[in-house]
């Protein structure tokens, strides 16, 4: 286990770009290829897409110890009086990483955080990671909501390293510029110490045959040469395996389409890039 926990979050202020899929695949690649102890934390709304991605949908339906509790005023009391509360939050997956799923209380706690003085509002998740996660894991990956709310800023503060998957498209080009501006605004906000930086950006759902995809990936590499990662091919394997509660890494080579193989290799490369950057920081 490394001395200091590495952290990153997937954040793009837009839905449907492959954020959850990418987070899941990066986590598995880090766990299997680099032999790291990896924890995924799903803060991206209440649909629990990450749990579904790993076939844990039924198990997380009625949570015993929801992650939303760490943002509330009672967390200190809960933590002091229930010794195994963290263990009860965590679900092991079959592919290596552990997962803390999202829950219905996140929306309420996002609202409640608005009542908290600004100087105490954004470091809840950071404290949780320092106290509970860092002693147990090498890498923590956060799947953040696709909008800038109090939970998201907690995530940006705790993780600082931002990974941005983007789907090719005219609107998505602007999204990257908007994201850069948003992260800079967050860094300049004196009400908190969050200093998030974009570490990796890559195209997802890339179709080799379309001009749109080619232009999009070329422009990413041209405009962001230091942080552009491998493009991830569009592949039916991804959606099919999601439906079965698995990532591409759960399949044998013979079971993958060519596009699935390319997508899996892209995620391996993206994971290597990300971990190298995290180690350099």
């Amino acid at each position, binding site marked *: 286990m490394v001395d200091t926990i590495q952290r990153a979050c997937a954040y793009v202020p837009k839905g449907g770009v492959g954020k959850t899929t990418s987070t899941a695949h990066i986590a598995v690649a880090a766990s299997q290829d680099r032999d790291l102890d990896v924890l995924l934390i799903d803060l991206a709304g209440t649909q629990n897409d990450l749990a579904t991605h790993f076939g844990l949908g039924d198990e997380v339906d*009625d*949570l*015993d*110890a*929801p992650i*939303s*509790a760490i943002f*509330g005023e*009672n967390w200190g*009391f*809960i933590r*002091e*009086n*229930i010794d195994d*509360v963290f263990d009860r939050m965590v679900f092991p997956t079959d592919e290596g990483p552990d997962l803390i799923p999202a*829950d*219905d*209380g996140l*929306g*309420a*706690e*996002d*609202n*409640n955080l*608005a*009542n908290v003085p600004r100087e105490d509002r954004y470091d809840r998740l950071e404290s949780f990671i320092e106290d509970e996660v860092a002693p147990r894991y090498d890498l923590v990956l956060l799947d953040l909501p696709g909008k800038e709310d109090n939970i998201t800023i907690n995530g940006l503060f705790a993780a600082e390293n931002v990974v941005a998957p983007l789907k090719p498209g005219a609107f998505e080009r602007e999204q990257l510029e908007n994201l850069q501006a948003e992260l800079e605004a967050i860094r300049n906000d004196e009400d908190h110490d969050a200093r998030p930086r974009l570490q990796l950006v890559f195209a997802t759902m890339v179709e080799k045959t379309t001009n749109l995809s080619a232009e999009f990936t070329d422009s990413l590499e041209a405009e962001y040469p230091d942080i552009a990662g491998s493009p991830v091919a569009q592949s039916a394997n991804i959606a099919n395996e999601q439906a079965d509660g698995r990532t591409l890494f759960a399949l044998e080579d013979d079971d993958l389409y060519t596009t699935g193989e390319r997508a899996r290799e892209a995620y391996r490369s993206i994971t290597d890039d990300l971990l190298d950057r995290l180690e350099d920081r």
Partner: protein
Amino acid sequence: MTDDDGEAKAEELLKGQQNKSRHETPAAVESDDADDGPDLTEKIADAYGEIEDGDRPENITLRDKHLAALFAGLDATDEMLELGEQAADELERDETPKTRADVCRLLLRYAIDDLESDVLERGADGFKRHKQQEIEDVDSI
């Protein structure tokens, strides 16, 4: 609260967490400490005015037989004034107590200062505000 009570309470809080929903949370309220209850300095200033108008007594009285006996004993053994001088030293006040009342005032001030040092300061601020208000009242005539 016993350990078992604490754990039971914590479990109850954890269970309630799942049932929270965004639309049921209360509106955000910005709390301004200055609006939480009456201002001490202002109330002290008001009290000065009431004392000078004769609407409030300027003595503090308390009935306590144990303290009464204690002070009687200290007085009889000439230790009371020494106690008062100690209090004056601690408060860094350049005064020499001569009476039981002097000693009691110093002891009471010492106790307040030891518990909450800014309370006496706010008392002084209250006096200044009262004087300022007197000047403003005269100017407005």
